[in-house]
């Protein structure tokens, strides 16, 4: 096989992504067809910026989903003679039936840059959205009462939030994401606190709504408690006997640190929104009807604060992606073989001035994902302001 030219690289790369293109076209066709019935999500397709952003984000989501079909080589396998190979280089003496090129070249350990980038999407999208969701649940659970009740509780929680926000992020990571910390078990205590919040959040959410109807309440809250505490034991303490919920201690540490850094920001936004909304008439009406404070917070205030929160959610996933990249860049908390973008950039930068492709590819990938999320947030903000 001959080496590929740039047109060749582009065509073959484009073909490799066929499941992604198919899924993207389907998503857009269905969404645009039914956009009038899809509330805020449908309105997104009225804004060009929002659609572009959504396309970028979904491209990477589908890439992560179909990564197994897209990759051309095993991202961890080194092929002889392919060290620092240029983009489009033909594999020397390929095995029967294997892909004949390194589409985007080889890295300094002769691994396929293209496959590593595709697998890296999976690594990033496995953690970033989940960590953001947990940060939001924690921020909302604490921000609602702080904004609604005010007083001492608010002063105390705000002080704690400002404390974390005043910490330079990088310093916090260097202190929290180390093997020594895992040894002492501190991440487990953090996780013990952190994973409790979703259980509390959903029990209170359902309880405040269904407590006039005890049988249904008992069913819903009971289900949340059983599943929640089961997952809680597995994720935080690794005690799940069935092994469905389990997390590698290093990954748990990274996850907990990222949530811990993000939650105070969410807390501040939620608190501000609640303080603004609680002065509205419908909240006063609810109070006059004798509704409980948690019902008002969770079922009256929270749905009305969803616009800014959804926008912030998109921005924050991008921010979390950047944070995870930073962790990888400094080699904190990830295994050295891991194909995630941050550590691939770090690997590639040693030979940056001679063979830039190994660092450039994951760098552009990360940038396009975060850019997509920012554009999506911008589109959503525009559309949610319109009504």
């Amino acid at each position: 096989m001959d080496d590929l030219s740039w047109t060749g690289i582009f065509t073959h790369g484009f073909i490799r992504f066929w499941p992604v293109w198919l899924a993207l076209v389907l998503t857009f066709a269905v969404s645009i067809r039914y956009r009038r019935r899809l509330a805020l999500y449908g309105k997104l397709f009225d804004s060009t910026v929002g659609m572009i952003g959504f396309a970028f984000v979904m491209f990477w989501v589908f890439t992560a989903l179909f990564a197994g079909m897209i990759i051309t080589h095993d991202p961890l396998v080194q092929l002889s003679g392919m060290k620092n190979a240029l983009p489009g280089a033909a594999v020397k003496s390929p095995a029967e039936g294997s892909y004949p090129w390194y589409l985007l070249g080889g890295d300094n350990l002769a691994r396929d840059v293209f496959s590593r980038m595709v697998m890296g999407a999976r690594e990033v999208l496995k953690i970033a959205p989940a960590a953001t969701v947990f940060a939001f649940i924690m921020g909302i659970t604490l921000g609602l009462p702080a904004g609604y009740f005010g007083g001492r509780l608010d002063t105390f929680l705000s002080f704690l939030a400002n404390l974390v926000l005043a910490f330079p992020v990088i310093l916090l990571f260097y202190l929290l994401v180390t093997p020594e910390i895992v040894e002492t078990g501190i991440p487990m205590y953090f996780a013990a606190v952190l994973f409790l919040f979703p259980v509390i959040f959903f029990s209170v959410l359902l309880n405040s709504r269904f407590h006039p109807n005890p049988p249904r309440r008992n069913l819903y809250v009971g289900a949340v408690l059983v599943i929640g505490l089961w997952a809680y034991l597995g994720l935080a303490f690794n005690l799940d006997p069935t092994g469905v919920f389990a997390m590698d201690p290093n990954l748990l540490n990274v996850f907990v640190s990222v949530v811990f850094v993000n939650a105070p920001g969410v807390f501040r936004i939620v608190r501000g929104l609640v303080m603004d909304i609680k002065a509205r008439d419908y909240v006063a009406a609810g109070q006059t009807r004798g509704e409980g404070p948690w019902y008002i917070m969770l079922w009256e205030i929270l749905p009305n604060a969803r616009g800014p929160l959804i926008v912030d959610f998109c921005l924050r996933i991008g921010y979390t992606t950047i944070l995870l990249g930073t962790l990888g860049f400094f080699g904190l908390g990830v295994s050295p073989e891991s194909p995630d973008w941050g550590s691939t950039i770090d690997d590639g930068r040693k030979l940056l001035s001679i063979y830039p492709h190994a660092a450039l590819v994951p760098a552009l990938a990360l940038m396009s994902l975060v850019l997509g999320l920012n554009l999506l947030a911008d589109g959503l903000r525009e559309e949610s302001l319109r009504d």
Partner: protein
Amino acid sequence: MFFFLLRRIGVMILTALALTFVVFYLTNLPPNLEKLAKSEASARMTDDQVDSWLASNGFASPVVQRYGEWLGVVPGWTGTTSDGRPTGRCYNRLPKDAEAPRYCGILQGDWGWSTVFKQPVTEILARSLGHTGWLMLWVMIVMVPTALLIGVLSGMREGTITDRVLSTFSIATTATPEYVSGVILIAIFASATAGISPWLAEHGWISGKTLFQGTATSAMDKITFWNFALPVMTIALYGIGYIARMTRASMTEVMTQQYIRTARLKGVSFRDVVLKHALRNALIAPFTVIMLQFPWLLNGVVIVETLFNYKGFGWTLVQAAGNNDIQLLLACSVVAVFVVLVTQLISDVGYVFLNPRIRLG
């Protein structure tokens, strides 16, 4: 105003104490101390030997007491060495026959000894902060005017082509963290095989192999445009987008105000309206944003100094953290926390000062 300031400073000191304690606790965890003992004395120590080394070096007391000693509000520990000489926290590296002071913490100016660089921490800090100071100075000179200009230009006439182009640029830069933009900039401007350098060299327009230098090591002796532009741009780019978006938001809000319309209807030219009426009010919000960017800049400094091998504050922090240099890491944290808190204070006070609509009791 006075009481507001007093309260703010009180909260700030409380925050600083809490943060430094957290850092102290996390850097003095038992595994870190064990590693310290093994690197300082001998790598093949048994657990008992580690314990006795820690005890004879003052690490056995409770963590709160050691924090007090480090801070300088509790007398430093004292003891005797195996050959009967007095020893203690304050006895290290004393001049001959000098009396050891009772207190020796950071409040007394004793910041400790770096185990990696084998130098007093204060010396290393002074040197590295000097380097980082230059970097920050140039970042500020590039970042603030560019960001404000972009923000004002795009916010002054909302929805025009200029606005759309500049807004897209701002979003793109906020989506590009330093470790990405740094890599891209090096690949374009400082790579011997890719980007524009080979093309320029072919035409003989540059004497060296690359247009810019890919490392900033030489900038520690002498800053030139060619060795300093890339690190400065890398940090500045990420901040530009954010500040520009804030300025734009603030500018568009001001431009819809009644007094702007009145001025326009009176026949004041658009240029004068923007420069004399709108600009001052539109720049209040970005001021706070610029001040609150400092924690972020610190992040950027760490990444860029690592990427460009510039031995400033960020590089020192990474070395200290990576090599378990407890005293140096603590000192770096104190500086970082101090910078963040002081900029927050300035931003709060400055906001009140700039905005006469806010009254404080």
